[in-house]
Structure formats: C-alpha cells, structure tokens
C-alpha cells in the first residue's frame, strides 16, 4: 500500500489546532451553521495513536486523467468549456516539511458556476463535457498539480443576493487522521471574496488570504493555460525525541 517505505514514519502527536485561526462553528452570517454547530465545548485531548495514524493512498490508484478535469468527463475528442487553468502547489506541514503521498481531492462548478449535482437548481447550463471532480497524490516534494477550467461565481440561497466567489473545494488527507482537512481555494483579485459569508466565517484576514491563490505567471503555459499556485499547510507533528512512552506503546 505504501509508496513511502524509504521514509521513516513519524509517530509524534500533532500540534494543537489554533481554533482562533479557523472559523468557529457558530457563524450566523452563514445561516446553515446556526443549527449545525455544537453548543457544548469540544473535549480536548492530546492525540492518541487513533488520531496520529492514518491510511496511505498509493499512486497506483490514480487514473491517467484523474487530475485533468478538462478531459476526465469529456467525450473522446472533446473538452470542457471555459478558461483553461493549471492549479498547482505543495502540501506542507506547519514545520514547513513537504507532505509526500498526501491524497488531494478537489471539486468545483463549471465555467458558468453550475455544479453537476442532482440537488443543484441554478439555471446556468450544465457543460456536457465537465464533471467537476479530480484527485492526485503529492510526490516526494509534496507537489500536486491539476488542469481544469476556472469555475464561475455561483448564487446561493443564504442572503437574498449572496454569490460565492469562484472557488475550488479541496480535501486533503495527510499522514494522520487528525490532519484531515477540507477547505476552499479562491482566485487572486476576485472582488466577490470579501462579500462572501462563507469566507467571512474566518475571523482573521490573514487566514483568509491563505486561501487565495495568486496568478502564477511563471508557470503559465503560453497559448494553453494560465497557472495558479495554491500551497496547503497541514498540522505539524511534535518530535517524539523527549516523549516518555510506556513499554509496548
């Protein structure tokens, strides 16, 4: 299962999450959070082996087009409509170390802001050649990359006239179950970012800026696709150097 057998596995507990940096659970500007936020305090506990460990996903499970949303749902010879972009970056941990072998999954609306989902009723058209999902596994430097079309802005029933900025959802699986993270990537310069109640759940402007991918002109492919760079940081791990461990632990 593991592609990382030459790497010494780490067994330290993860740094405590900075829950002032993340959004709180109850954020009434984002209406659905009102009834879906716990009211009792979380029970805090230093990570045990149940959270320090996690499964490994092999590169072998990834299909050839899994990271090419322009083609992975398209009919042969056709492709998705929209602004062609490459999104790439690194998955690091808080210590700045690359997270190799991380499973990165992503999903998004099409160029018109329409999701391919049966619950979705927005009147913008479905693109018959666009599914909207992709995945890849980071290499030994923590790098990932995928090709897609830039998603459109999307209206949603929250406030009377709320629109999501263009965004791509990311799900990241690092090396431990406690690192599990789902987030959203936004695009540099989009004025919708600062109007969005979901973005606004995050209290600190610097944390929001961590979700905004800059245009990466250097990696833009002439006559093909512009590039955006989006680095992702997962929780770091404590060194086990000084931890007292009982026999058999």
């Amino acid at each position, binding site marked *: *299962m593991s592609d*990382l057998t030459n790497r010494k*596995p*780490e067994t330290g507990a993860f740094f*405590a999450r900075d*829950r002032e*940096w*993340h959004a*709180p*659970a109850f954020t009434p500007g*984002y209406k*659905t959070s*009102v009834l*879906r*936020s*716990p*009211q*009792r305090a*979380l*029970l805090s*506990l230093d990570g045990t*082996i*149940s*959270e320090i*460990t996690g*499964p490994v*996903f092999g590169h072998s499970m990834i299909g050839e087009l*899994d990271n090419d949303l322009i083609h*992975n*749902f398209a009919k042969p010879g056709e492709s998705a409509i929209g602004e062609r972009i490459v999104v790439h970056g690194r998955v*690091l941990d808080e210590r700045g170390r690359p997270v190799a072998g991380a499973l990165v*999954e*992503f*999903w998004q609306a099409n160029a018109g802001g329409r999701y*391919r*989902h049966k*619950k*979705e009723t927005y009147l913008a058209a479905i693109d018959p050649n666009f*599914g*909207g*999902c992709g995945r890849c596994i980071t290499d030994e430097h923590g790098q990932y990359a995928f090709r897609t079309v830039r998603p459109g802005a999307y209206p949603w029933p929250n406030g009377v006239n709320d629109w999501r900025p263009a965004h791509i959802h990311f799900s990241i699986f690092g*090396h431990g179950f*406690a690192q*599990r993270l*789902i*987030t959203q990537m936004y695009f540099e310069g989009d004025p919708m970012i600062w109007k969005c109640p979901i973005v606004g*759940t*995050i209290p600190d402007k610097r*944390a929001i800026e*961590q*979700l905004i991918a800059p245009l990466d002109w250097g990696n833009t492919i002439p006559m093909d696709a512009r590039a955006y760079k989006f680095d*992702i*940081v*997962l*929780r770091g791990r404590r060194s086990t150097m000084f931890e007292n*461990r*009982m*026999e*058999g*632990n």
Partner: protein
Amino acid sequence: MVQELGYLKETPSQTAGPYVHIGLTPNFCDINGVYEADLGTAMVNDKTLGERITVTGRVFDGAGAFVRDAVLEIWQADSAGLYNSPSEMRGTADPNFTGWGRCATRAEDGVFTFETVKPGQVPFKDGRKMAPHITVWIVARGINIGLHTRMYFPEETEANAADPLLLRIEHRERVATMIASREGSTYTFDIRLQGDGETVFLDI
C-alpha cells in the same frame, strides 16, 4: 530579538458545502466514469480477520432534522488492535483490512452505513488500554470545520468504564452519546450536532 520559530499556519478549514459528493463520492451522486469506485466504500474483503459488523446511523441538526448531505469518514484498528498505517510501530495490521471508510448520508433518509470489523483495543499514551472504538469525522454544509468524535461499543462495559477518553468527560450523562446501540451485528450510532443529547465532539 529572539530567533523566529518559523512555523507555518495551518490552512484554515472551510465547509465542505452541499455538493461535497462531487469530489468525495462522485459515483454516489451519479458522476460515473471518472473513478472506477468511490474511495472508502470497501473496508473489508473475504479474507479480513475478525468479527464482521455493520455500523449505521444518522446525523441530526439542532432542530432534530436529519442531515441529508453529510459525508462521514471512519478510521479504526483491525481486530487485533493494529492500525493499517506507516505510523503503526507495534506490528503489522491485517493486510485485508483498510481501517478507513467513507460514506455519504442518503438524501432520502439520512442514513450512513459502514461494513467493517470490530476493532481490538489500542493503548493510550500512558500504556493504559483504550476501549475498542472507531474514530469518526463528519463534514457537511453548515459545518465550518470537520467534527471529530468516537463510537464505542455498548457490550464493552468494563473497558468503557476504564477508557481514558471517556473518563475525561466531566458531565457523565454525556458519555452515552459516544456509545452505539446494538442489535445483533449491527451497531447504530446516531450523531446529534446540537442541543439535547449533543454528541461529544473532540479537539484532538
């Protein structure tokens, strides 16, 4: 001035949103042909060791309505109490058991289901044994950061009474929110996000 610590900040979480299925369980929402199968649907095969169990349940919001658009992931030890992970240093886990599952709640009735095996006991940091448990992570529209909890087993009365995590729960009546109910080989674990009977969620 002292040296800079130089640590990075964790990427902030955002909600998985109502269309999380497109990314995590595309076949479940009829996006077929991109991936052969949705990840995490098969935890066991014919050769998996241990007692076969079904874990099922629903997720309820603060008004008592079931959540139709959640995705749950579970992570657990094999029947011998070993994790199928490179960070498992105590031995080699059952190669026919992934230990990891992912399941969306059904839109019509909110039910999630995992076919798995009953986990063995694993040690707490100080060497005490934790009672058999399954680690659960929940994301959905309206949940800004994934919620962690654990499912424990009702027949493990003694082990549960000695479990280091359950012992930390100050309001003792809340311990019951982490213990499934059992009928034969099926365990039902309902999760209440808010209000009466609110499930204990973890910062771990």
